[in-house]
Structures are given as C-alpha cells and as structure tokens.
C-alpha cells in the first residue's frame, strides 16, 4: 500500500498517467496516432527539446536560469550552416565538434558573468539572448542558408536511420544516458542539487557554489550548440529567427517535469517526461484539429498545473541538501 502511495506521489508516475490519458483521448479521435511509428516520430520530433531541457535542468537545479539557449542555438546553427555552405567538404564530425565548442564558449560567457561578476542569471542571459541572436544577424546579414546550399552529408546525419531509429533520436537517448550518470553518479552532478537546494549548506560541505553554476551554464551552452546543428539540419534552413521563443518551451519542459524553479529539486526522468509531454501535446493537437488559440491556452494551463504541484514539494525543503526530495501529497 505504501509502495503504491510513494509511486503515485512521484512526479514521473503522475506524468506517465497524464501522458497515457492524453494518448487515449487523442487515439479516440485519431486512431493512427498511437501506432509505434507515429510515437517514434513524436520522440524524434522532441529529441532537440529533450537535449536542451537536460542542459537547462542543470542550470535550474543550481537556482539559476538560462534564457539564452534558443539564441545560442540560432547563433551556433547559423555559424555551422554558413561554414558548411562556404566549405562543403568540411567533415560533419568537425562541424559537430565546432558546434559543441562554440555552444560551450557561449555558455561559459553566461557562467562567468554569473560566477565572477555575481550578476543575477536572469539578467545575464536576457542580455546574452539578444546579443547572440544579434550576432547571428551580423554574421549572416539577415540572409538565409537554404537547403540546396547545405551539403548532403550535413542534411543526412540526423536523418540517417540506425537500428530502426534516426540518429537524432539516438543522440537524445545518448544525452539521457549520460545525464543519468552525470546527475546521479558524479560529484559535480550532486553539487548541482546541493547548490540549489541550500547554497549555505553546500558551502559548508566544501562545494564552490559559483563554480558549480559556471559548470551548469557550460553544460547548457554546449548542448544548445549541438542542438544548433541538429535544428538547422532537421529543418534544412538557417535564418536569424530560428527557434525564436524556444527557450520558454525548454524551461516549461523542466518545470512540467518537476524541476523546481527555486533549485535543488528535479530528476532526469522527470525532465525527459516533461519534454515528451510537451512534445506529445505539440504533435497531437494538429491531428485532432484544435484551434491554434486553444493550443496556446492548453500549453499554458499544463505549465501552471505543474508549478502548482511543484510548490507543494518546495514547502518541505529542509537542511538536507542531498536527499531526494519528492512531492508530498
């Protein structure tokens, strides 16, 4: 009995139930939606959101926020697309390495300002959000990089099917696997939780709070850089407004997944399910023919519902910085 209770109290269980209910509802109106191929497609479509949300989770765990992820994605994506256009023979692995490095550097700029200059993360990343997107405009002059200007290899990689799934989906799975290891099994992963859970206590246990935040921003930036390449390749077009406003979806995925905006609470499974929940909604609403105005209202309602439940969990925050915190019903 108590096992069922604990299971029910878990955010992951709640989300799974909600997704199942949603799936049943959609299938009633549109039976083809629940086919394995269609669901694999939803996962594929949500891959980039999952990758970004995992980076964002690290940042939010440390009681910070990274609003610049979508701008970082656009800037990095534009850069690799332009490089590919100029040097079509450049290996895709080099370009991916470059996307990771560039994203990491952009994230490190955020992190340094938060760490060294002690600036509030929301202000820093609000600033870099406009700077990065502005730089994407400066380097491209507002011009688009189009499908026929990208090399076939550049476009092919995320689409290539390996063992039944496209590479993009496999990358998301890889990111999930590595995140589980990072957040649950490494000192830095635990430091993310400690920093946001109780910064003072974290300092007493020997954790450098500023440095931990810096690493979180680096991780978020690096994943945003990788997503830049993936995005540009998936939609076969790079322009300045790519992924405009997408940072809000990323933060929403974290919040729906039970990551507390106040820091210290969250899980990889929750975040992934939060992203998938949003992905499910975004893919389901078009096929059941819901008006675009309702689509926005529904997404908003889900976020508010999630925050309300999160608030219950935050009430029980104590001095223990490393124990897993759960929603208390």
């Amino acid at each position, binding site marked *: 009995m108590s096992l069922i209770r604990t299971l029910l109290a878990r955010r992951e269980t709640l989300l799974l139930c909600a997704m199942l209910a949603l799936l049943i509802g959609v299938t009633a109106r549109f039976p083809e939606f629940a086919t394995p191929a269609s669901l694999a*497609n939803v996962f594929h479509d949500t891959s980039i959101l999952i990758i970004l949300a995992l980076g964002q989770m690290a940042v939010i765990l440390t009681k910070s926020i990274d609003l610049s992820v979508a701008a970082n994605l656009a800037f990095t994506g534009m850069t690799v697309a332009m490089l590919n256009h100029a040097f079509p023979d450049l290996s895709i692995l080099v370009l991916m390495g470059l996307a990771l490095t560039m994203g990491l550097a952009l994230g490190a700029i955020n992190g340094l300002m938060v760490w060294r200059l002690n600036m509030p993360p929301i202000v820093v990343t609000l600033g870099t959000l406009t700077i990065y997107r502005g730089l994407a405009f400066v380097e491209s002059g507002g011009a688009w990089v189009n499908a026929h200007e990208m090399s076939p290899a550049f476009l092919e990689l995320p689409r290539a099917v390996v063992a039944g799934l496209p590479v993009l989906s496999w990358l998301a799975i890889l990111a999930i696997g590595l995140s589980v290891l990072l957040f649950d099994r490494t000192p830095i992963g635990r430091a993310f939780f400690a920093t946001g859970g109780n910064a003072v206590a974290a300092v007493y246990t020997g954790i450098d709070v500023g440095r931990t935040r810096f690493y979180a921003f680096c991780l978020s930036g690096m994943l945003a850089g990788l997503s830049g390449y993936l995005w540009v390749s998936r*939609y076969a*077009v790079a*322009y300045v407004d790519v992924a405009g406003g997408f940072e809000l979806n990323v933060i929403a995925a974290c919040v729906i997944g039970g990551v507390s905006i106040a820091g210290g609470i969250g899980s990889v499974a929750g975040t992934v399910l939060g992203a998938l929940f949003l992905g499910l909604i975004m893919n389901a609403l078009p096929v059941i*023919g819901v008006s675009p105005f309702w689509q926005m209202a529904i997404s908003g309602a889900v976020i508010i519902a999630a925050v309300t439940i999160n608030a219950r969990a935050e009430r029980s925050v104590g001095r223990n910085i490393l124990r897993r915190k759960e929603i208390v019903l």
Partner: protein
Amino acid sequence: MTLFKKLAATTAVALAMLAGPASAETVKIALVVKALGIGFFDAANKGAQEAAKELGDVEVIYTGPTNTTAEGQIEVINSLIAQKVNAIAISANDKDALVPALKKAMERGITVISWDSGVAPEGRLMHLNPSSNELIGNMCVKMAADNLPDGKGDVAILSAASTATNQNTWIEEMKKVLPKYPGVKLVDTVYGDDLADKSYREMQGLIAKYPDLKAVIAPTSVGIVAAAQAVEDAGKTGQINVTGLGLPSEMAGHVKAGSSKSFAIWNPIDLGYAATTIAYELATGKAEAKPGAEIPMGRMGKVKLDDTSSGAMADPFVYDAKNVEEFAKIF
C-alpha cells in the same frame, strides 16, 4: 480652308514645341531602392535597364542608401532634386517620413511614383503594387489545381500565424475563387506561426490526417520551406505538392528535390521594368496619374489605378524547375 490650314499649321508648331524638350534630351529616371546590395532590388534594376533600352531616350539612375533607413532615402532624394532628374521611382523605407522630401521634388516638377513598398498618397502621383490580393489568392489555388493528378484531390492551406493580416486576406481570396476550380477540395487550414518547427509539425499532422492529401498551399516563406522539408522527410515527394509563396533562393533545393512543383512571388525584373516605364510615361506627359486612369507598362500591359491612385502590376510570377535556378542567384 485657309483658316483650317493656318490652324493646322499653328497646332503642329505648338505640338512640336511642346514635345521638343522631352524628345531632344534624355529623360533621367531615378530608381530609388530601400538599400543597395539587395538581390531583389538589383534584379529590379535589371528590369529598369531593359526598359531604358526599349524606350531609347532614357537614362536610369539606380540609387539608394546603404542601409534601409528613411533618413538615408531622404538624403538620396535631396541629391536627386539637385541633379534635376525628371522622375523618381521609389520603394520606400517609411510610408510617411519621405512625404515632405518627395513633395519638394514634385514642386520642382519631378514626377514621383512609388513601387513595391508604397508612400502615402500625398507624397507620390501613383503607387505600383507588385500584385493584388485577388491575383495572389487566385494564383495560389491555380498552382495547386494545375498539378493535381487527374485534376482533383484534397488540398490544405498552411499559413503563418492565425492573426497574420496578409495571409488571412490571401486565404479569403483563395476561398472566393474555389468555385472556379471544382477539382480542388479544400480540407483544412492550419497555422505554423512562421516558425520552422511548428510549420513542420503542422505539415506532419496534415500528412497523418489526410491520407489522400495531394497539395498544400503555404502563402508564407517560412511555411513553404518547412512544409516541403516535411514532405521530403515523410517520403511523400511526388504525392504531395507543396506550393504557395516563396523566394527562389529558398525554394530552389525543394523544387529540385521534387516536393514543390511550382510556387510564386513577384518578379523583381518585371517590377523594375514596369516602374521605369510608368515613370517615363508620366514624366513625358503621355499619361496622367489619377484615380481610374490606365497607364501603359510596355510588355507588362496596363495598370489600372484605384481610388488612392495605386494599381497592381500583374499575377505573381510562377517559378518552377525551368527557371528557379536562374532566379535563385538573384533573390
């Protein structure tokens, strides 16, 4: 008889005197664009030069500021007044800010017209729109209908935001002409908000929802590219034709891949040609710009002016596998 001869002779002399100055020296027409270095306007200049060659006694001055500001265009206009050009044909960066400078030009006897992006009516004699909402709506449906297998099938519209004024007007016009195309069965209208990812997802939704979908009309440049990519990724190339409004440089790859058989947008060459011809007709007094007037545009036919002295040039120009590569280099 003698009186008639006298009259005829004096009329001839008077006419010769009137026409004299215009034909004796070349007509200087300034084609002022939003900014230099933009492919679209360079192409318009190509058309203007073509018109100049055809008309003979015309010199086209292609000019504009280095960035798209109204201040920059005002400076350009002032220097053109000093150069005593005969006509200014402008694509405006600001509808109202240019009015005082252009009024000054008209006071000095310069013929001022606007094209592409208009100026408020008091700042110009007439405005040339690349096309009209009716023509755009009709062309969109026509392109979809022309490529339907057996001439009939399901067609959907993928628009920008559900609140976008331009797109909503065009969709209205599309719905109006549907009776003219009995083969076109409009099944749905969806909105991609001019976001690549949302448009892509909406297109996937359409593919899943309507197994017999044969064509999609996307009257938005972000939407048409995303829809074409979604069709290619879903392996539906050849079954679903993506059409609508897009730029050749952005669509070239998708036309080549076969997901889009044709799409439309105004032809900047024709636009520059028509603007130059109209400026010439007005500057030489051969035509007059007033509501209801019809002004000849050489090979482009005639433009009919409405109550605000603005008119539409032509149907949007259709791009397909035959010409898209060539125009992709231009804009």
